[in-house]
């Protein structure tokens, strides 16, 4: 069975009876069993998936109304709650946590008859960009297993790229969907802030993070957005998108559109292969009738420091709930005083989480908040003004998703600042709330390169049209696993 089909093709094939949901899901589970020992995308696999697919086939045969997913196998980043399933956040702290409710995105997909084939790997509490900070070991890049998958939604990207599911949901706080999508040759989408409910997503940095799909095609991303966007009374930051249909008009093209090339994202430190791919993408967009022109966004060079200051501060607050009394693991109380008990229990956190908690306590603290946290908020405000100004002139902004190629496992893990800088092109969309997408575009020595397009808030539909136009200009090699 051909597992390398798009979500839309899957739906069509099942709807018309060419394949059954049960066969497809069974083959997907077999694929996971065959390749995941090498890739480690999954933290847990849904043992009931085939039965659930069989039930959907029955519904189809009996003429019952079937949801738009028709049993499509989807993987879910392990920081989203699925009722009565383990949700570990790739942390030992939550290794036995069973979610008591469904996240809004999960409830919406269940209503559309999606099948969750499993929960996928990530950096612990989404803090990282390689999955090397997962308490259960890193995911491997299916294009070369000696290389990082990207992160923090690395398991999502690997599972899509390696045909272990048709689509996945990740979360993007500073590029955590787009970065692994770029490194593994998948489409990765960070929506306008508020477009998708965060209810049931385990919080890291609430003010900027968003759930986003990872898929094989841009149309599949539009299809997924149709299913999971919209206002949610359980998340007051959600915005009303008037039931926008992101698929309709997706082939409208980009003739006459203006695209800004962000100068600070193609400068110092960029890999020559990535720069060459970016220039190629710009030429192709111009060939489709767009006009491209360089633009400078001064605040981009401060964006990574501002991003890590803000996210660590929010993480320090969000992770305070893990005191081993409300959430935690089985650890006896006797012999401990209150503070020493919590301190001891928190040793279940991995080193990166502990480092960010310490930073999260430090940067907003009395005597330091003016130097770090308030300045970071001011950079965020000024960056937002610069980007808003850019969108008065341009329809889209373009850059490589990541300025470097995927790197070897272990290569950067001991150099936190070098790892921070990998985020330089992605954090702007989060700090400003804008939608951004990574489109698989090139391959250099067997390693994928993604191109990022960004649009103004609530221009998600237009952004998908541009991304689709660019996607149609490339033909990429098959994943070698």
């Amino acid at each position, binding site marked *: 069975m051909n597992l390398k089909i798009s979500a839309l093709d899957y739906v069509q094939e099942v709807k018309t009876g060419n394949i059954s949901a049960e066969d497809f899901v069974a083959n997907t589970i077999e694929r996971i069993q065959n390749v995941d020992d090498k890739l480690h995308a999954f933290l847990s696999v849904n043992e009931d998936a085939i039965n659930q697919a069989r039930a959907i086939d029955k519904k189809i045969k009996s003429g019952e109304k079937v949801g738009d997913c028709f049993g499509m196998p989807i993987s879910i980043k392990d920081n989203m709650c699925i009722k009565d399933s383990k949700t570990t956040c790739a942390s030992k702290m939550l290794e036995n946590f*069973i979610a*008591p*409710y469904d996240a809004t995105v999960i409830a919406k997909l269940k209503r559309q008859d999606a099948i969750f084939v499993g929960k996928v790997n990530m950096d612990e509490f989404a803090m990282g960009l390689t999955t090397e900070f997962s308490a259960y070991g890193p995911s491997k890049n299916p294009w070369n297993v000696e290389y990082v998958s990207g992160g923090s939604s690395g398991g999502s990207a690997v599972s899509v790229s390696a045909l272990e599911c048709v689509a996945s949901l990740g979360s993007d706080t500073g590029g955590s969907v787009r970065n692994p999508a770029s490194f593994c040759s998948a489409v990765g989408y960070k929506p306008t802030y508020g477009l998708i409910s965060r209810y049931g997503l385990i919080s890291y940095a609430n003010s900027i993070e968003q759930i986003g799909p990872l898929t094989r095609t841009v149309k599949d991303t539009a299809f997924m957005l149709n299913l999971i966007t919209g206002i949610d*009374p*359980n998340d*007051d*930051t959600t915005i009303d998108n008037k039931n926008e249909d992101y698929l309709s008009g997706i082939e409208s093209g980009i003739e006459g559109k203006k695209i800004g090339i962000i100068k600070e994202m193609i400068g110092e430190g960029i890999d020559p292969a990535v720069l060459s791919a970016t220039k190629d993408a710009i030429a192709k967009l111009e060939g489709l009738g767009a006009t491209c022109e360089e633009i400078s966004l001064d*605040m981009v*060079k*401060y964006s990574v*420091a*501002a991003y*890590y*200051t803000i996210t660590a501060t929010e993480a*320090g607050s969000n992770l305070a709930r893990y*005191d*081993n*009394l*409300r959430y*935690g*693991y*089985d*650890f006896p*109380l006797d012999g*401990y*005083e*209150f503070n*020493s*008990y*919590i*301190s*001891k229990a*928190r*040793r279940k956190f991995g*080193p990166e989480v*502990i*480092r960010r*908690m*310490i*930073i999260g*306590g*430090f*940067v907003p*603290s009395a005597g*330091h908040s003016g*130097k*770090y946290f*308030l*300045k*970071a*908020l*001011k*950079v*965020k*405000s*000024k960056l*937002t003004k610069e980007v808003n100004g850019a969108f008065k002139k341009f329809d889209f902004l373009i850059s490589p998703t990541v300025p470097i190629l995927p790197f070897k496992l272990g290569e950067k893990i001991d150099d*936190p*600042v070098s790892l*921070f800088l990998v985020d330089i092109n992605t954090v702007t969309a989060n700090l400003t709330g804008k939608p951004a997408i990574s489109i698989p575009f090139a391959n250099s020595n067997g390693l994928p390169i993604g191109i990022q397009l960004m649009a103004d808030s609530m221009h998600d539909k237009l952004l998908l049209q541009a991304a689709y136009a660019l996607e149609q200009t490339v033909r990429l090699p098959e994943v070698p696993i």
Partner: protein
Amino acid sequence: MVTEEEIEKVSKLMRIGIDDHKEYVEKVHMMINFFDILDSAGVESEEISMPEIPISKLREDEHIPFDDKLIERLNHYKGTYVRAPKMSS
């Protein structure tokens, strides 16, 4: 420039025990020093803009029944109370 002693003090206040000085304090020190770049951003006069959600837009503050007794899932639930460590030694 922050000192390692300051970092250790904040860790203690946050109830985070640190054994491995190199693993935590030195790396946190590197990270925080990287944030010093914010000093050259020239944003002193910038106003901080925060998104505002009017009270009228918030959902009704009403009880929504939940059929699962979540308290019973806690590790140290004792039937009528949750046991916690003693507050002082």
